[in-house]
């Protein structure tokens, strides 16, 4: 189930699904230690003997307050005649998840309403060894294991705290969990349980006819009991209302300090641009890792998630942050890259946010048992390319000086060494879709860009010998691209050459790298004919539209009637091409139309997933996907830049 709302402060990250259930809860790093492990925290309401969890029988609308990282969600149940208005947030610097819940009694009668919150922690992602206990002095529930403490508390505007509570055993045939205990409206008050445990708390409201009352609920996250209690005291002292205001204001100020003039943009595009930056920031760990997605639903299918830092996704997000003027965020990422890059100068497949190696499916030997390098070379290349773009924009030489010896020199040396002397192309590595090994046009384009970037860095550092070597290598590689990967008969680039020498002619959106990474201009004939072939061959011919990833893409394939599902990133590459080749305002509208396509197919909260069902437009696979948001920001920036150039040329 895709996520509708993501919240975070660089240490705590929380994601909610479309039933307002908390589905991912990361602490103390974004992406590391998901304390829910695919489970959920729910809200339930009991009144006049009836109980319902917010879910299927509720009308739920989920959104953000504009330009900030505080949710605004509504849930209405006509049977209970109750409406809930909910704001969720993670405080901008305190490690506290905050929830404000305004309950509307829609009846003309006075009544008692009880609101329930279930907490199904799997601390450290494991269901064993947890303790859940009631703390009577501060009237709260605490879940803990080793160095992770989560303190749950709340207040009502009628002066009450937690009304009833229960902690208990779960996930066994006879003991489903205390959430089940909630459904009679009464919690039994069991004060402690250990092992696989969960908890539930309730708040009681005596409501007047057609009235509203408010409940404040919070979860304080800490490494020990004292810290958790101190945070709890802080919430009580300051008040949830004030903490929410602070958080609203912080993120609004944050997103509005981008130094790009957005005033010519249509409102929907401006909104998505800012939402994208905010959502991207929730996926940046304060240690610099940028995770691909916090959505852990893939756990149910693969027993693994997207909560890893792929250097590719991170590099593109860093590029987007830099374009929008958030260089301090991209700098965090490059510092992280400098820390994790291997001594040989390449990045492995993916990493955990703490810098340790992530899980991988790339083998160290090929089908014949021959050793192979289990990497995607474009990841190393894109990090170097993004670093150059960062420097070009911000000129922070002192920072570059710190990462130059490792992130630039070692990576550049690797890219030079990992070349086939005969062809001048890079040696084989895995493609950006992480499926096949070979020499891919997209990878070659990225490596060309990285060699050029490294040559420019060498010039900055007055290393002319290295500059010449790298420049020469980039030129030779571009020539080799044309010689080996451009098919004159087809009039376009091909996808790849495999280890056995076979040529893969599949139309693949990743060929867009030939101009997005810059070895070719968008208007160069070889780029134009390739992009036209993609536009003609991969546009999904259903009412939903959008660009498929490649011909006969089987990943989450919905129908054999289309080439594949539409992907946001692929559609945005096409938008970028239309924008790049536009010479007039009229031509520029083609790119704008595709930006509108993106906004049209996003949910109200603005989260962009990976792909869409080609018939229903529903998200497929994870959502959000940070790469999709990064490509949107890049495309909008390029649109603004081109708009400005065309405007000024028209004026003169």
């Amino acid at each position: 189930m895709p996520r509708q709302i993501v919240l975070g402060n660089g240490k705590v990250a929380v994601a909610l699904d479309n039933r307002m259930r908390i589905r991912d809860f990361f602490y103390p790093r974004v992406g590391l230690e998901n304390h829910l492990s695919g489970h959920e925290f729910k809200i339930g309401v009991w009144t006049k003997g009836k109980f319902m969890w917010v879910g299927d029988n509720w009308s739920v609308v989920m959104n953000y307050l504009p330009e900030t990282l505080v949710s605004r969600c509504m849930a209405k149940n006509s049977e209970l005649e109750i409406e809930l208005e909910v704001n969720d947030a993670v405080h901008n610097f305190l490690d506290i998840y905050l929830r404000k819940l305004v309950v509307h009694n829609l009846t003309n009668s006075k009544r008692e309403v009880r609101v329930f919150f279930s907490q199904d922690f799997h601390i450290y992602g494991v269901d064993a060894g947890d303790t859940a206990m009631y703390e009577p002095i501060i009237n709260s529930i605490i879940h803990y294991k080793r160095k992770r403490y989560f303190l749950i508390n709340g207040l009502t505007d009628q002066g009450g705290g937690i009304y009833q509570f229960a902690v208990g055993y779960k996930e066994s045939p006879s003991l489903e969990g205390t959430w089940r205990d909630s459904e009679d409206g009464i919690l039994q008050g069991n004060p402690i349980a250990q092992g696989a445990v969960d908890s539930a708390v309730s708040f009681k409201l005596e409501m007047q006819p057609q009235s509203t009352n408010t409940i404040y609920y919070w979860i304080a996250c800490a490494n020990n009991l004292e810290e958790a209690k101190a945070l709890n005291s802080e919430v009580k002292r300051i008040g949830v209302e004030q903490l929410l205001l602070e958080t609203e204001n912080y993120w609004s100020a944050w997103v509005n300090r981008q130094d790009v003039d957005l005033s010519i943009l249509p409102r929907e595009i401006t909104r998505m641009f800012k939402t994208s930056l905010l959502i991207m920031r929730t996926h940046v760990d304060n240690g610099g890792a940028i995770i691909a997605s916090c959505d852990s639903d893939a756990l149910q299918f693969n027993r693994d998630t997207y909560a890893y830092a792929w250097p590719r996704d991170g590099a593109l997000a860093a590029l987007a942050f830099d374009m929008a003027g958030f260089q301090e965020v991209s700098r965090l990422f490059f510092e992280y890259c400098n820390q994790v890059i291997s001594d040989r100068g390449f990045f492995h497949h993916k990493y955990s946010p703490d810098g340790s190696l992530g899980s991988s499916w790339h083998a160290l030997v090929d089908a014949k048992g021959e050793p192979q390098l289990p990497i995607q070379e474009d990841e190393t290349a894109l990090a170097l390319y993004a670093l150059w773009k960062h420097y070009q924009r911000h000129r922070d030489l002192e920072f570059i000086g710190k990462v130059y010896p490792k992130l630039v020199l070692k990576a550049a040396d690797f890219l030079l060494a990992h070349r086939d002397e005969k062809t001048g192309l890079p040696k084989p590595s895995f493609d950006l879709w992480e499926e096949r090994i070979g020499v891919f046009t997209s990878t070659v384009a990225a490596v060309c860009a990285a060699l050029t970037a490294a040559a420019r860095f060498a010039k900055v550092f007055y290393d002319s010998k290295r500059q010449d070597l790298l420049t020469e290598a980039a030129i030779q590689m571009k020539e080799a691209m044309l010689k080996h990967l451009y098919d004159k008969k087809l009039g376009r680039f091909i996808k790849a050459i495999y280890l056995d020498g076979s040529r893969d002619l599949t139309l693949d959106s990743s060929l867009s790298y030939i101009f997005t990474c810059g070895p070719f201009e968008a208007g160069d004939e070889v780029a134009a004919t390739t992009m036209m072939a993609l536009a003609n061959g991969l546009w999904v011919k259903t009412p939903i539209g959008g660009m498929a990833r490649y011909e006969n893409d089987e990943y989450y394939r919905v129908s054999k009637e289309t080439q594949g599902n539409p992907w946001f990133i692929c559609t945005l590459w096409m938008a970028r091409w239309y924008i790049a080749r536009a010479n007039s305002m009229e031509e520029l509208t083609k790119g704008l139309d595709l930006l509108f396509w993106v906004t049209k197919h996003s949910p109200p909260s603005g989260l962009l997933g990976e792909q869409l069902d080609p018939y229903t437009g529903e998200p497929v696979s994870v959502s959000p996907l940070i790469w999709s948001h990064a490509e949107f920001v890049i495309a909008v920036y390029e649109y603004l830049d081109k708009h400005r150039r065309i405007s000024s040329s028209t004026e003169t």
Partner: protein
Amino acid sequence: MKLCKTDSVPVGEPKQFNIGELEVLVINLKGEFFCLAARCTHAGAPLAEGKLMGDVLVCPWHGSNFRVMNGAVLKGPAEKPLKVYQNTVKEDYLFIEL
């Protein structure tokens, strides 16, 4: 100071423009332009995202109501009015006085 072209602010759609760090909200009420501070005086919400109901602007975060013509608070939680900038239209451009 030149702020924007008048045709870039459609009737009934508040739009924000920035001059350096100054954020100005422009509202076109049936051809008449009003320029106000772009942030709610309560908690800093972006008023360009607010709803316009007649000549009343509703804050998108907590629902404060402001009179477009003079920035006055009609409904809280905001307590302070919005700053209003005088403006003039010359040859399809909107100019404001700072």
